[in-house]
């Protein structure tokens, strides 16, 4: 298949949520190559999270095809989905931390899932959490953390197992500018090691300063796909 050249290939995808009166995504086609760094921007409710959830196969599109590293997501058997997800690190907009596990255990879980040996986990988890500045919160539970701290745990979990793709949904929404820059720099560094990175964000400053590829959505339609782009033309 010619499909496998792109790391992420989205082809004419339309997504209608059950019961919704309009499509969340309309006929979207995007190719993202291995090792690219892409910003996904657009106003609230334009379909960014939906796009990311499709790539994680949390949702199945109403129409269209999606391929990740050559794997057909539409026809993928259910038991193969975990395999797919283990190669994708996802920062969720609502964090999705396990409430009964500590910060350490939440991050460790992503490694347990891929069967990492205990030794490796003990070494890697504190290291990753240090990268996001949470080295002294290892034993705290999610509901004992501030919003920004929870977000950083979610970020740490997303790249703990060195996935080949990172999908980050609004990863700095709850972070101050300084911490945000740190996280973006980190994502940039990870990207330079060959990881494909897709970041949905509202952070205009960040997008404008980093000058990466920008994909812009509006009301579910792709309105712009620009190399070395900026957040928006107007305003």
């Amino acid at each position, binding site marked *: 298949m010619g499909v496998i050249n792109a790391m992420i290939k989205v082809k004419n995808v339309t997504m209608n949520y059950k019961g919704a009166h309009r499509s969340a995504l309309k006929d979207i086609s995007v190719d993202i190559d291995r090792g690219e760094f892409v910003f996904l921007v657009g106003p609230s409710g334009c379909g960014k999270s939906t796009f990311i959830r499709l790539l994680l196969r949390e949702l199945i599109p109403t129409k269209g095809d999606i391929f990740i590293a050559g794997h057909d997501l539409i026809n993928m058997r259910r038991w193969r989905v975990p395999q797919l*997800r283990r190669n994708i690190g*996802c920062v969720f907009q609502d964090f999705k931390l396990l409430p009964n596990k500590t910060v350490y255990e939440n991050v460790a879980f992503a490694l347990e*899932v891929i069967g990492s040996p205990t030794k490796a986990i003990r070494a890697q988890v504190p290291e990753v959490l240090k990268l996001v500045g949470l080295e002294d919160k290892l034993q705290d539970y999610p509901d004992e953390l501030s919003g920004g701290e929870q977000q950083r745990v979610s970020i740490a979990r997303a790249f703990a197992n060195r996935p080949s793709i990172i999908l980050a949904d609004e990863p700095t929404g709850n972070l101050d500018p300084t911490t945000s820059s740190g996280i973006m720099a980190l994502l940039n560094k990870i990207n330079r090691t060959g990881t494909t990175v897709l970041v949905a964000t509202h952070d205009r400053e960040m997008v404008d300063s980093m000058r990466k590829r920008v994909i812009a959505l509006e009301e579910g339609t792709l309105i712009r796909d620009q190399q070395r782009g900026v957040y928006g033309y107007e305003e």
Partner: protein
Amino acid sequence: MSFRPFYFLKESLVSFKKNWVISMAGVTTVALSLLLVGSFMLFAFAMNSLIKSTEQKVEVVLFLDQGVPGESVEALQAELMSWEEIKNVLYVSKDQALERLKKDFKGSEIVDNITGNPLPASLEITLKDPQKANNVVDRLKDRPEIDDIMHDREIVEKLFAVTRVARWFIAIFVGLLAFASLLLIANAIRLAIYARRKEVTIMRLVGASSWFIRWPFLLEGILQGFIGALIAITLLYIAKVTLIDKIKNSILMFLPIGLSQQEFYQLVFGLIVAGVVIGAAGSVVALRRFLRV
């Protein structure tokens, strides 16, 4: 990614502790349900032996012909003893019969008016299975040695009708209890997993396979079932020692009530197995919906 018993075991134990409210609800539900089943089983055992002992009182009495010689009687007795349905045969001589009568009617004038000994000798038959009484009577009724057979078919049938109904009642209620317990436990486990559905979804999204998620829940279900069963058994044991055994040793000495040590162990074993199996199965079934992500 292979099956990692220690990791799963640790996860389930930790989770059991952290979800204390939920775990306790599960444990008490299992304990209460099995306690009900168990105590009714004890009750049923007791009732059953009571019924059996009542039925055992059914006898067939053969009144012997006056002229039958001693050897024939002994031969008949030996033959009857060899029959499968028959448990015991007791010979009551003419003299013994008269003595009994005198004792029964003591103080009444009837005894004084009896001249000589008009009573026949008899053989009193106890049956292994009292329900077979009619059978035995039919086979014996044309024997020349036998003058008359005393066996009240009607009363026996009434008695059996009663005991049959009692048995049915007990069986139906045991079935109902078992069924209700199963549903109650399944229900509690379903609620428990429902309360944790978000966790399951998150685990799926982070790349956990179904079995990776299922194992700790399964072990937790087993743990809940096991602890619940242990509690039920402990309470039952206390009840048995303080209540049933005491009753048995006092007022009811004469009744063959209650169950053997072995029956009690069978019950205990059954309850543990039930607790564990329902706990495990309940968890797996309840999880299904949330593993679809």
